[in-house]
Each structure stands twice: as structure tokens, then as C-alpha cells.
């Protein structure tokens, strides 16, 4: 915000109030308007300030403007009458607008206009009612019937114009906006890194940059390979199969550990081997995809059967659930890829892509009269304007929430 803009924002409210008071007394009250009443510029400015700047500004502007209208020369009513009414109206308008924004996350112009119009009408009625209460001889029932409808109609007609003027002057930056990315070019840099790494690290992005939309990983079919195929691409498998039979002292051959491969393998069930025969090398076999939550290899003991390593082997090498190297194994499945969890480099420069957590709102402190209940079940979505909006977990309760916020100081 430029300094000029800041000065305009600070000086706008008093300037508008003074202009409204003088214009009301000098021009509006003297102009021969048809239809009984006359608009109240000060009331309109007060409600517009309340709607655009909140209850505090509305209260102060209402008191100041009302008092000025009370004590400025032609007067005609007791000092403090309009200050009382405008103060209340300004507070109520600001409060309602804040509550609407808290509940729905938006402050649409239509709502602002409605709140303003209702506030102006209530203010006009309040002026008449307070005049009756202090037994002002001018405020008779007949006079009210004659003046009030015209005044309210004029106020409602002028609402949009005054709101436009005031909001143009005191417009503030949108509240509770998501923090700006620290690097404007973060997207480009991250894309370059992604290209350069070519899949070595899944998705990298700069810390502090907003994440790109997370795409659901494509589901891949497990690929099966034959172990006997000699090809450069499978050289690892071939080498592993040649190393798979270490010799033990004593000349015995170590039995291979196929434990775990017999369970959950549909190929085993379909092979229809006679019991007691081992599936030889070169059989097709697959492993069920790893469960997503499995982070450590299962260390369950192999089922009792004839294929198991002896104690020595079990002591020297940890039991493995997967078949040894060189056997057919499925390529890394999609579920395994999606269950990949980052190590969470807390303040690294590069960090794996992960949906950034929604900005936490400041926890509500104690209410004015009663303790605040902790908010639960809120989630955040991005509005069309790029602002983070708080949505209740139960959206159908929002009217009730709005009411409770208006009536009691729960938040």
C-alpha cells in the first residue's frame, strides 16, 4: 500500500463524516424534496463505514457523526440522541457483516448493501422512537407517519452510491489471505528440477512455494518377468540367480527360502503341483502388491513346510518375505508408490511435494462472557479469489452458526 493510499484510508472516515454532516445540514435539509422525509447522509456514511471496516469503526463513526449532527447549530433535538442511535446501528452493522464473513468466508456486495439498507432503516426508526421516548414535541405519531417512509426510501436509494464512495476510499487488503509464495519463480525452478531429476526424486519443489495440484497416481499393472530370460535389462536378475546358492561348509547346498511365496499367490494355487514337489526355478510367480501401510518388511516366520532355510541360514541372514534376488518379482506397484512417505526435511531448500497444510487460524481465545469452544472439523478450500476460505464440517449448520455468533459471543 502506498503512503498516499494509507493517508487516504486514515483520513477518509473523518472527512466523510464532516462532509456528510455539513451536506446534510446545508443542502439536504434545505432542498425541497418530494415525499415527506429526507435522506440521512450521516447515517448512510456510518453504516457504510461499519460494513466496510468492521464494528469498531462503525461504533466510533456512529458516535462521532451522531454527536456532530446533534450539536451542530440548527439542532432541534437533544444532544446525544443521534449519537446513541448511530452508535448502536454502526456496531450492529459491523458485527453482522463480520459474522457473515466469518461464517461464509465471503463479503459479497449484495450482502453489504442489504445490511446497510436494513441498518439505515433501523436507524431512521430508532431516531423516531428515541424522539418519542424523550417526549420531543416535534416527534408526533403523525409526523413519524409522514416522514419515516420517505426517509427510509431515500436512504435505501442512496445506499449503493454511498457504499461505493466509502468502500473506494477505505478499501483494505483482503483479510486472512493465504501467505504469498516467497519465490515468485518457484514454479519454474521446480519444473526445471523435475525435468533434470527425471523421476529420481518424485516431485520436488522449493520450500515455501505453493504446491502444484496433486494428481492421483496412475494405476499400474504389476509386471511379471520370466527369470530365465537372459537379457541385458535383466542382468541383475541373472546375476542374483547365480548367487542364490551359496555353499555351506560341509558341501551341502542351501535350500532356498521360498517362504511367504506360497501364500496369497494365485499362481501357486493354479499350478496344481503334487505336494512335496518344489516349484523349480523358472516358474512364474508373483508377489502380491505390498500393502500401503507396510513400512517394515514382515518378519513373520515362514509357515511350516518343506521349503525353509535351516537354522544356520536363518541366523546368518534375516528372513525375507520376498523371494530372493533373481526371482520374478513385480515391478513396484502403484500402491507402493502412493504410499511413499517423505522423510519431511523440515527446513530444506528442496522438499518433496506434498499438499501444503491449510493455514491455521489463530486459536480462538476465551469469549467475552463464556469460554470459547474449540472449533473442530473445519476445512479450508480455496475461493475463486485465491483466498483461503474456512468451511464448516457441517455446512448445513451455517445459519445456526451465524445466529449463534450474532447472539452469543461464542467465538
Amino acid at each position, binding site marked *: 500500500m502506498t503512503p498516499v493510499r494509507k493517508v487516504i484510508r486514515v483520513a477518509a472516515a473523518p472527512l466523510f463524516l464532516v462532509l456528510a454532516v455539513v451536506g446534510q445540514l446545508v443542502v439536504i435539509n434545505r432542498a425541497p424534496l418530494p415525499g415527506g422525509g429526507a435522506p440521512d447522509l450521516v447515517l448512510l456514511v456510518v453504516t457504510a463505514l461499519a460494513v466496510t471496516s468492521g464494528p469498531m469503526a462503525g461504533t466510533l463513526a456512529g458516535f462521532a457523526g451522531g454527536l456532530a449532527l446533534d*450539536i451542530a447549530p440548527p439542532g432541534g433535538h437533544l444532544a446525544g440522541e443521534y449519537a446513541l442511535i448511530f452508535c448502536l446501528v454502526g456496531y450492529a452493522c459491523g458485527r453482522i457483516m463480520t459474522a457473515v464473513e466469518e461464517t461464509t468466508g465471503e463479503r459479497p456486495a449484495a450482502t453489504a448493501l442489504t445490511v446497510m439498507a436494513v441498518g439505515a432503516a433501523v436507524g431512521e426508526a430508532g431516531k423516531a422512537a428515541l424522539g418519542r421516548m424523550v417526549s420531543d414535541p416535534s416527534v408526533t405519531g403523525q409526523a413519524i407517519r409522514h416522514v419515516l417512509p420517505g426517509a427510509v426510501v431515500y436512504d435505501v436509494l442512496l445506499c449503493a452510491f454511498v457504499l461505493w464512495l466509502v468502500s473506494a476510499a477505505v478499501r483494505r487488503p483482503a483479510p486472512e489471505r493465504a501467505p504469498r509464495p516467497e519465490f515468485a519463480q518457484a514454479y519454474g525452478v521446480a519444473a526445471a528440477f523435475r525435468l533434470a531429476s527425471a523421476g529420481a526424486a518424485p516431485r520436488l519443489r522449493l520450500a515455501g512455494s505453493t504446491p502444484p495440484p496433486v494428481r492421483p497416481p496412475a494405476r499400474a499393472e504389476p509386471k511379471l518377468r520370466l527369470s530365465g530370460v537372459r537379457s541385458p535389462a535383466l542382468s541383475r536378475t541373472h546375476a542374483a540367480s547365480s548367487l542364490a546358492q551359496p555353499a555351506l561348509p560341509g558341501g551341502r547346498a542351501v535350500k532356498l527360502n521360498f517362504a511367504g511365496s506360497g501364500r496369497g499367490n494365485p499362481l501357486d494355487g493354479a499350478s496344481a503341483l503334487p505336494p512335496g514337489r518344489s516349484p523349480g526355478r523358472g516358474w512364474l510367480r508373483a508377489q502380491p502388491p505390498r500393502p500401503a501401510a507396510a513400512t517394515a518388511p514382515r518378519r513373520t516366520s515362514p509357515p511350516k513346510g518343506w521349503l525353509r532355510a535351516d537354522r544356520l541360514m536363518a541366523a546368518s541372514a534375516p528372513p525375507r518375505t520376498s523371494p530372493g534376488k533373481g526371482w520374478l518379482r513385480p515391478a513396484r506397484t502403484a500402491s507402493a508408490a502412493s504410499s511413499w512417505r517423505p522423510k519431511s526435511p523440515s527446513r530444506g531448500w528442496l522438499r518433496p511435494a506434498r499438499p501444503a497444510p491449510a493455514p491455521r487460524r489463530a486459536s480462538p481465545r476465551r469469549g467475552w462472557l463464556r469460554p470459547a469452544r474449540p472449533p473442530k472439523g473445519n476445512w479450508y478450500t480455496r475461493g475463486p479469489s485465491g483466498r483461503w476460505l474456512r468451511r464448516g464440517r457441517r455446512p448445513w449448520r451455517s445459519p445456526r452458526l451465524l445466529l449463534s455468533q450474532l447472539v452469543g459471543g461464542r467465538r
Partner: protein
Amino acid sequence: MRDARRTRPILIILLLVAVALITLDFRDGGSSPAHTLGADVFGPVERVAGDVASPFIGFFHAVGSNDSAEIAALQRQNDQLRAELAQSQVSKADEAQLGKLLRLSGKDGYRVVTASVIAAGGDYADTVTINAGTRDGIAPNETVLNGDGLVGTVTAATATTATVQLATDAAATVGVRTADTGQIGALTGTGQTMAGSDDLQLRLFSSTAVLRPGEELVTFGSVGGRPYVPGVPVGQVLTVTSQPGSLTQTALVKPFADFTGLGVVGVVISR
């Protein structure tokens, strides 16, 4: 909501202050020091603004009135520049009002300070501000009149401005007598000047007096000429209503002065 929570104590304090102000003003009868302060602060501002705005207001009145002569004059001068036209209209109207006022005051032998209206009260108030004050010799409770007749009385005066309570204000009561028969009565406003209907309500004191529509009323006069000097024309009886159960006759009076289009007024200075 944090803003709302911080606001509530301030709101309560301000409401208490407002109630205290109302109470003080109610005790003083609407003339507490707050009004003096406000007049000192806003008086000069209103003077300047009123001087700036009065041509436009005069133009509005010239256009808005149904006076065929004025409309004809406007049409006759329509060839000239529009701004010049409006300005000359206002000047002419002011000059005519001033001339009538001087004739009236000269006839009755009053010393009159002229002033023009610069601001008006709100919807329910029949008060105006004029751009002359104690510096010009104006003091509270002095009669304000127009080229046409009685306007009101001064209720408060600062150095440069004065507040006038119009005769149409619901709180104003003027003692009047009929010009022909000399029957006396009290005239009160109905408080609807700005609403367009500025009729006054007359209640005669004598139960045997007979009122006829068309009779003219002049002020009866107060002790020392305050707040009303005697002999100022007020208005004409419009309709006579005799309510059952009422001892005296009441009537609606059409005032001579046009309260919605007040421009130049004169304040009768007590000698």
C-alpha cells in the same frame, strides 16, 4: 470477531456517554453547553458551506416552485447562459424579499438586521441557522420575520451564527390576535414544515369568540418585545373546526411566510 470483542466495552462506554448527554440536555431544556460547543465548531463551517451552496438551493427552489411567473422568466431567459440565469434568478428573488422586508420593517418602525438562512434542521426539527450572530447584535428571544410575515424566534446565538426556531415547530407557541376583531389566541406549529404542510393550529382563548375563514392574524406581542414583537402579520385562517366537548374554537392557519423556501430573513433588534 476479535474486533467485535474489543469493540463491545467501547460501545458500552459510548452508549453511557450518549445517555448522559441526553440527560444533561433534557435537564437544561435543550440548551446545554454541548450545543454551544457545537455551534462554535460547526457555525463557521456552515457559513462557508451555506454561502457556497445557496445559489444551488435557490436554483432548486426556483425550479421546484410552481410560480408561473418564475417559470416564464426562466423560459424567457433560457437563451442566455444557464449558470448566469440561475444566478440572476437567485439574486432577484433575494432582492425582492429584501425590499419587501425593508418596507415592512420601515412601516412598523423596527430596527432589523438582515441575514440569510444557511442550514436547516433534520426531519423532525423546524429550526434553521442564519448567518448573523451576536456580532451583529442578535441575542436569543428576538423575533425573526420575513418579507411575508412572521418566521420565528431566535433560540441561541453565537458570534457569527444564530439558531431560529420556526413558528411551525411543534414546540413554538405564538400569541396572536385577529386583525379585525382583536380576539386573542395561541398559535402552535404542527411540526411538519419540511414535510410540506406548514399549517399552524390556532386555539382561541375566548369561548364566545367567532372565527371566520379568511381572517388575518398578527402577533399579539410579548413583554418587552421578546420573544415576539407585536403587529407582525402571521397568517390567514384556513378552516375553523369546533370539536365537540371543547370550550373554544380551533382553526387551521395558513402562514404568510413560505417556510420551505426561506432565504433572506430579518431579526428585530430590541432598541
